[in-house]
């Protein structure tokens, strides 16, 4: 029964062209991240060469190379911004669409008068959504590897591919969380638009507001993969810093930076610990989704937009 629901959901997403649209956007995003990474690297190299030339002409010594030995995967550092920014919104849309028709079109009335439990049905939907996100991220992985080959002129090593795989695995978990949030808000509201806006509100709070409260990171600062360290010496942050480990977007970014070697090096055990709040959130939101689905009143007719 789960397979039946999952198969139907996969066909539905593909048939709504949402799959193609999300795939296209994510691939565009990956290509853009690669391009920006190459551009920024290229710019810094040029700026450094120019600075060396100017300083030498003025009899001054060459400045330290600000890039040092930049790891090849740092080319994709913008992905760690685009995944929580764009990827999460796309995941919300996918999650939303997976349950929207049953709610807004009243199709739940036809489904749940059949011998299928709500838990089974929901599980099938989650399997489909997870598979769709995995397929899309797999395509993004291929694009990333192609970008690395084109820019670096060589195929990534096994270790680098492993790191990339790890990064995409982490991103899949992150996107799955937001897909579930998209499903929760469908069940918690009656109208399509309200569900979408509620999920968007949750995304804004998790992506912008929580990092500001826990780490002083301003909203626009979190859009740059390279951020200035923020002074958090105030007593306010002394209190809120305890919540930092629960800020899924921050933990995701820092874990991603560690995996792609674009951030300050830390032991793998620390990176692993950063994934725990994400896993916890997944379980929590998953249980919430199941609970809401079991209690939801599917007996009402079409509720419209």
């Amino acid at each position, binding site marked *: 029964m789960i397979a039946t629901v999952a198969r139907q959901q996969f066909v539905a997403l593909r048939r709504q062209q949402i799959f193609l649209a999300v795939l296209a956007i994510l691939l565009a995003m990956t290509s853009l991240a690669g391009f920006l990474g190459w551009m920024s690297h290229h710019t810094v190299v040029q700026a450094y060469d120019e600075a060396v030339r100017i300083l030498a002409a003025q009899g001054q010594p060459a400045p330290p190379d*600000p890039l040092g030995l930049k790891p090849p995967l740092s080319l994709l550092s913008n992905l760690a911004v685009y995944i929580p920014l764009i990827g999460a919104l796309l995941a919300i849309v996918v999650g939303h669409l997976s349950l929207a028709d049953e709610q807004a079109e009243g199709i739940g009335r036809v489904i749940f008068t059949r011998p299928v439990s709500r838990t089974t049905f929901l599980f099938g939907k989650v399997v489909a959504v997870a598979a769709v996100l995995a397929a899309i991220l797999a395509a993004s992985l291929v694009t990333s590897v192609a970008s690395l080959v084109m820019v670096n002129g060589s195929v990534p090593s096994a270790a680098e591919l492993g790191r990339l795989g790890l990064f995409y695995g982490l991103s899949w978990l992150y996107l799955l969380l937001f897909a579930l949030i998209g499903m929760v808000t469908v069940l918690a509201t009656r109208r399509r638009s309200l569900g979408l806006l509620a999920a968007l509100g949750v995304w804004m709070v998790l992506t912008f507001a929580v990092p500001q409260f826990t780490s002083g990171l301003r909203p626009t600062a979190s*859009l740059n993969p390279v951020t200035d360290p923020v002074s958090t010496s105030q007593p306010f942050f002394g209190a809120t810093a305890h919540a930092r480990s629960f800020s899924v977007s921050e933990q995701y970014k820092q874990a991603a930076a560690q995996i792609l070697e674009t951030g300050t090096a830390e032991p793998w055990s620390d990176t692993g610990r950063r994934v725990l709040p994400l896993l916890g959130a997944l379980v929590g939101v998953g249980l919430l989704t199941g609970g809401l689905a079991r209690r939801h009143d599917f007996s009402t007719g079409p509720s419209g937009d």
Partner: protein
Amino acid sequence: MALARHEYRAAARSRVLVTLTAVLVLTTIASVYIGAVDYRSRLADYQAYLDAARAGGITQVAPSPLALLSLLRGAVEYLEIIGAVIAITLGYLSVSRERTSRTLPLLRSRPVSPGELAAGSALGALGIMTTLVTAVAVAAVVCLGVIGHDWVGGAEIVKLLLTFAASITYLMVFWALGLLVTARSRVAATGLMVALGLWLVIVLILPQIGDTLDADNQVPGGLFAALNLDKPQEDLVVSHFGAYETVRTDIEEASFAKHYERFAFALTDVKEKYRGFSLGQLLDEKRNDIGWMVVYSLALGYGVLWAFRRTAPLPEGAP
């Protein structure tokens, strides 16, 4: 006016709008609070310095390094991000509400022209945006005074009012965008998704690309600082990236949000280089951004009028 009142009342009853507004106000308060706490201690330090200088008979004192209005940076950024979503939502609701209740044919059967319908809708939205920005501004100013121990006064009030006006203009443009896209969509929820996609591009992606491509943002603390370059040396380096900078700034210029942000940051002393400028100098410096805001406002405003003229009372086949 009746239409404007109807629009205002309907929006005020929308739970989602009220919730998003609460999120906006709370995040603004928190962001201003964080800055104000730090500001208070630095203000106390400066005051102590002034007292010591007075006691020592020193008359030449360093000007205050503090910029009170700069603490509103977070408020401006949240208006830019969350405020725009609220505005789009309002524009979407203006259309979907009339579609769902099928009242547009009833309105059209009254002696009310499409222009009047558009004006009434816009006035109602203006009322909502003004309420929203006022709530944010009052919360922020009170926070500055109570927690930062420094109240906005004098020339700062004028700058704040101009920022206030720019914020309302910014939000009205997004309201118009939400309304226009929803009116042109067969299914309103699809229109909302498209409008939010445009929001993502205008407010987040284009500025992000512009920021990411900014050479100075490539390393923490600034590239030119890392290269130990002073301002003239930095300008010399940048002069070799003319084409690059043109493309980068063109990308940023394409974002309406960036123009609003630049204007607001200049008025609120967020950008240090504008501190000390007179109001006239500021407005002159920012004429490009002001010009773009006017252009966008007029274009979207005309779009709303066109939408009301062209929109059929009931879209074909729409639910």
